[in-house]
């Protein structure tokens, strides 16, 4: 283990440079955040992830954001355990009816100002699950959505670019 620590100290970081904030995301967010919200957030975002019916593919890639290669925390973005500590709800899945109430209650428990990010094709547009008896459809049918990150699942760099856009927009004065 000592050897691993020494290698980490001398070998330089394995973390890769950040992607540029996603342009479509920046465009989507422009004008959505008011000054007061920006002032309160600074350059830090706390995210609560909510699986509202995902196949867990999105979760796997969101997990990858925490690995040393993508290292999300270097930007001041971190995942928190409670919606009460969160600025952002990162929602995946085509909102299963069985999860709808839990999703709304999680949103209610999140303090203002708050943003909702729809992550993955299911959360953005309902995906393959549109039209069934068991799913509501896109997240925006349940909650106001501020940012959409498509993909099945989105790659970690796409997630990173989207979240950085949120951070940039919220930090710009």
């Amino acid at each position: 283990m000592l050897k691993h620590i020494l290698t980490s100290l001398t070998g330089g970081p394995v973390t890769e440079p950040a992607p540029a904030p996603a342009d479509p995301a920046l465009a989507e967010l422009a004008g959505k955040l008011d000054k007061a919200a920006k002032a309160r957030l600074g350059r830090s975002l706390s995210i609560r992830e909510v699986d509202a019916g995902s196949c867990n593919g999105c979760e796997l890639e969101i997990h990858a954001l925490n690995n040393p290669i993508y290292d999300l925390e270097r930007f001041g973005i971190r995942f928190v355990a409670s919606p009460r500590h969160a600025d952002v709800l990162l929602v995946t899945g085509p909102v299963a009816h069985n999860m709808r109430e839990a999703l709304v209650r999680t949103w209610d428990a999140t303090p203002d100002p708050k943003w909702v990010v729809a992550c993955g094709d299911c959360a953005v547009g309902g995906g393959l699950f549109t039209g069934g008896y068991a799913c509501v459809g896109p997240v925006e049918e349940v909650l106001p959505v501020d940012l959409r990150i498509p993909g099945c699942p989105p790659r970690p760099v796409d997630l990173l670019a989207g979240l950085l856009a949120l951070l940039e927009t919220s930090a710009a004065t």
Partner: protein
Amino acid sequence: MYGEEPLFGLLNRIGTPVEGHRPWPRYRLGRDGWLRLIEELKGNAWSLLGLWGEVRAVHAAFREDFSGDVAVVSLDCPQGRFPSLSAVRPAANRLERAAHDLYGLTAERTTDPRPWLDHDSWGVRRPLSEQPAAPVPNPGPYTFLPVEGDGLHQIPVGPVHAGIIEPGHFRFTANGETVVRLEERLGYVHRGVEGLMQGRPVAEAAKLAARISGDATVAHSLAFARAVEAALGIAVPDRAVWLRALMAELERIANHLGDIGAICNDAAFAFMLAQTSQLRERVLRTADSCFGHRLMMDRVIPGGVAVDLPERGTGLLLDLVVELRRRFPPLVAIYDGKASLQDRTVTTGIVSAELVNRFGAGGHVGRASGRDQDARRSPGYAPYDELAFEVPVLTEGDVNARVWVRIREVEQSLSLIEQIVARLPAISRGLDHPSVPIEAGRGGEGMALVESFRGEIMTWVRLDGEGTVARCHPRDPSWFQWPLLEAAIGGNIVADFPLCNKSFNCSYAGHDL
């Protein structure tokens, strides 16, 4: 009576074989035959492989583990009722409750009649039955099992959990720090996969199969594809068979690496997750370079595979094997040598051999408790019959044993990748990627057993005359593992639940469908 009657012996006596069910037979039983089967199940060790409903019929699949014989039995239930298997096969209970919630089939004399997938929020009851019913007005709360005793308190957890994980509800009853009982309530991520598959062309249903459980997307796609190919009697190109195994082994390694790190992380040993998550990322990037998708979603399709391995692919894969062989063993040595970590994993969350056998639990959960079962070996499927690999089995049944089974499986899968790359057949002349078309206009019934990283997947499919899916039931291994998690945590402290849960890593989405 000594010994047990062979599976086919009994079924030939009490049932009528149904034509066109491949590769194993299906028998139609009468009600008397079904009751006779239940009698017989009391005294034998046949494993339940699945139980699923249909409009006015119920099906169950069994395997005689010793001989490897597999059969499906069916009972017509025009009144919507069938005698429950739950008393003789407890793993059948949740499957029967699911069949009730989706098809309105009532299991008579069941051990537990409560709803399972239906949380009274769909706006309809028994949605897949002939006559869906209006929802119950003012539904009451779900009834948890009563727990009585001095000094007990309850801890409700979920459906939204603290980490980045799927939703489910856990109701702990604890005495101080010690868990007396855990009761699970699942179904929150029910997306109606089985209903959505019905009436879809095979290619569209395959996309749904790929999204049953994202972490096992290759295995579920493979199970669906093989069931369809069995139903239609299609032989896929050799190269596709080997590429499928390649993807399946990459998926197995990626998941085990992620989980080994995550288990250690739940014991507050974050170093391991930081290391294994880098290795996992390395596997996913290789998968991306070779097959164009990090999780290899939609790459296994009925008829073959959707993409061929690029020319540089074999080199990338061999580099990956070399790198993992260099970087993984030192981490295993650290896992094995850290007393504080071993203190958390050894003797934690023990599942008895008797329970894994009674529930027919597969994967690392079964193999860590002595159940020597792997679908790649028995019943077995190509190309594994031509490959050399061992199936690691331990008997301690604790978190540590489940970690070690996964470690050994990573090593075996690395060897399998090497063997597959060395023997990959060339692409057949005239194909631009290794697959054969699925012709519309033919029907049939097929079934497949495929070993995912989590355990054995059983997929059953019926294609109608137009070649669309009439009924498909994909049974994730989690169905038979979730109930054992309730047993594993008993007598442990609440703080060890994350460790136990992660060492199982059951799929919520795969179970809830």
